[in-house]
């Protein structure tokens, strides 16, 4: 019997081990074990009781002969398995109970009652110990806990369990523990895989989201870039970027019309290659200036690829990086041929009209002046009034024509000054003489004062400037007012009594060379500070109530400025202390007069 049992035991061993290797299903392994143990031991029931963490337990595998109650899935209350038993089993105790009712076996009453209801008379119990927790740290038995029990029941009668049967049961727990270990690892692996899968899924979701956001941003960027490109390409001006190696890094569509090659071809090409040797030679100093950090604007006649010269205005705008290094420049180029032609036409037209006006105006002007003398016969009082009106209107018309012509002449570059040595005293006397009748007519007193200083000026130009400024001063002064005209020498060391506002250039001129300052002071309403620069622009008139009563072409001060600038002088206006305005301008003195 014993040898037989040993043989069967060996067979079961290998079967269970094989099963463990073949199957990862713990339930299968356990079921095989209980079935085989029941068969070998000829017990009425063999079961595996699994201890749950809350102290209760449950049959998870059972092999039972027909006619006996089935305990599978039955839960056992905590009381049937007291703590001290639990502890002893955890220590590795095995029990072979021949008769459950025999007090010598010391079974708890409640357990006896409990097993009795299932007809159990004898039982054999071996502990199944939990494999070390994974990951296994250290290897002491303290980490080993009771996982469950392998129990054989005998119900027909009491049974004296043989030591070899006990040993057989005990030995079987080793592969069971192995199976549990394997199951636990599997569970752990599954849990790890599940967690990792979840993690991966989460990461994947985040990635998908990120990709979607990025794709949206890219699409938005592409759209805005396309829009920008569309705009830049649609503009009728040449827009490009040139790097510091003088190579094109961007050209808009307009270049294609001009160069006859697409921007793709132009990309990366050197400016010399694109524009040719001749144009490049002319552009080169400007290109170098732009790459040195200067803002450059110039006009150049450039040929288009299909032929024909066009006047082009180029602007180079340097591009600085964060380290204040010039990385390249932006090129803007505009065909201004049409503008130039228009400007020329306008100049010619103004000139023509003005000239054609002059001859009839001369006749009209002179005829009225002659009539006004009264020597052609006496006119009635009303007739004289009408002649006076015609005379004044003709004067205005003449001034306007003269101003338009003067300005056109100056702006077209045809005006050049013819400086010679003149005396401030002579100029001031002449100007005062010319303006005296007008001053008298307006009831304004004209006061002039100067030393005899030699200046280097165009006498006609300075006379025109003085009479123009005096005419304004008289016009804007009230009846009974005073207009002062003075000229003083200003040596480099002397600061100006009234420093001009907004003209830093003047102060630098004033400190290097002696100049003469002409001043015309009126007792008029003055000029608001915000208009003091603008009144020297064309067609600008001071927008004050009293000025509306005074008619002018709005060109006089613009002409004065041009004339003064031709003398390398400055012109400006300030408020006179106590009201009124002071118009001042500077003119140079002759070199080698002993003053400098």
């Amino acid at each position, binding site marked *: 019997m014993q040898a037989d049992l040993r043989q069967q035991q060996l067979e079961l061993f290998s079967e269970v081990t094989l099963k463990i290797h073949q199957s990862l299903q713990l339930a299968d392994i356990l079921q095989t074990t209980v079935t085989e143990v029941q068969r070998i031991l000829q017990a009425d029931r063999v079961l595996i009781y699994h201890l749950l963490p809350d102290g209760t337990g449950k049959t998870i595998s059972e092999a039972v002969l027909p006619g006996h109650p089935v305990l599978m899935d039955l839960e056992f209350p905590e009381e049937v398995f007291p703590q001290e038993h639990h502890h002893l089993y955890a220590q590795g105790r095995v029990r072979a109970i021949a008769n459950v009712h025999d007090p010598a076996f010391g079974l708890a009453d409640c357990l006896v009652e409990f097993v009795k209801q299932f007809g159990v008379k004898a039982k054999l119990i071996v502990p199944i110990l939990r494999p070390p927790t994974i990951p296994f740290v250290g290897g002491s038995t303290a980490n080993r806990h009771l996982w469950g029990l392998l129990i054989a029941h005998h119900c027909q009668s009491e049974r004296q369990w043989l030591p070899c049967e006990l040993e057989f049961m005990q030995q079987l727990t080793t592969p069971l523990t192995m199976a549990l270990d394997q199951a636990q690892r599997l569970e752990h692996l599954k849990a790890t895989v599940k967690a990792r899968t979840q993690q991966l899924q989460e990461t994947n979701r985040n990635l998908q989201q990120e990709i979607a956001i990025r794709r949206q941003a890219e699409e938005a960027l592409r759209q805005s870039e396309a829009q920008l490109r569309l705009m830049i390409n649609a503009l009728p001006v040449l827009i490009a970027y040139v790097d510091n190696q003088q190579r094109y890094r961007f050209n808009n569509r307009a270049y294609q019309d001009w160069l006859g090659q697409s921007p793709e071809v132009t990309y990366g090409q050197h400016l010399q290659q694109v524009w040719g040797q001749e144009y490049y030679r002319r552009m080169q100093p400007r290109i170098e200036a732009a790459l040195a950090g200067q803002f450059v604007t110039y006009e150049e006649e450039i040929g288009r690829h299909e032929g024909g010269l066009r006047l082009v205005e180029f602007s180079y705008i340097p591009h600085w990086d964060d380290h204040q290094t010039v990385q390249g420049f932006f090129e803007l180029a505009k065909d201004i041929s049409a503008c130039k032609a228009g400007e020329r036409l306008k100049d010619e037209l103004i000139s023509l009209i003005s000239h054609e006006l002059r*001859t009839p105006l*001369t*006749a009209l002007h002179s005829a009225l002046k002659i009539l006004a003398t009264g020597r052609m016969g006496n006119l009635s009082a009303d007739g004289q009034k009408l002649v006076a009106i015609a005379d004044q209107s003709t004067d205005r018309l003449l001034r306007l024509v003269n101003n338009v012509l003067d300005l056109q002449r100056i702006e077209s570059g045809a*005006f050049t000054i013819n400086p010679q040595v003149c005396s401030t005293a002579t100029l001031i006397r002449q100007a005062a003489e010319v303006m005296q009748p007008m001053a008298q007519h307006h009831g304004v007193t004209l006061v002039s004062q100067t030393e005899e200083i030699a200046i280097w000026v165009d006498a006609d130009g300075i006379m025109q400037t003085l009479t123009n400024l005096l005419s304004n001063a008289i016009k804007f002064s009230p009846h009974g007012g005073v207009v002062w005209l003075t000229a003083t020498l200003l040596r480099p060391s002397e600061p100006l009594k009234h420093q001009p506002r907004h003209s830093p250039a003047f102060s630098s001129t004033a400190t290097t060379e002696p100049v003469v300052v002409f001043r015309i002071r009126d007792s008029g309403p003055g000029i608001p500070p915000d208009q003091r620069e603008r009144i020297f622009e064309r067609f600008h008139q001071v927008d004050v109530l009293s000025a509306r009563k005074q008619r002018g072409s709005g060109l006089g001060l613009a002409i004065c400025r041009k004339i003064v600038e031709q003398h390398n002088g400055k012109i400006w206006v300030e408020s006179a202390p106590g009201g009124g305005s002071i118009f001042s301008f500077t003119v140079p003195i002759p070199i080698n007069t002993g003053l400098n």
Partner: protein
Amino acid sequence: MMSGKRVLVIDDEKAIQTVIQFGIKLTSGWQVLIASSGAEGIQTAQTEKPDVILLDVRLPDMDGTDIVKALQAHAATKDIPVIFLTAQAQTIEKPQLSDLGVRGMILKPFNSLHLPEQISRILHWSMGGCK
């Protein structure tokens, strides 16, 4: 103001001729001779030998500079001072005038009552200028 001068005006515009005539006569009592074309002007200059010629730069038949050259080429007229009447100051700059032998320039529009004074100043018949 000097008296007894004879001024030849060469201008094709009747209105200008008239106002110059009235203006000069009223203020100076000078005698005014009129010619309406370049050819007529040269002819009158040779026969009348005026003290000064006021010459319109743009005449239908001849250019002002050509008339000046013609006058200078003739012994009878080569010393008669010529003053240009012009509306186009910028086409003739002052240095060019002296090269031509023209003594001065009076710009249109002018007041014909002031002509004797202007002529006198240009020809230094009385003092003028700023020197």
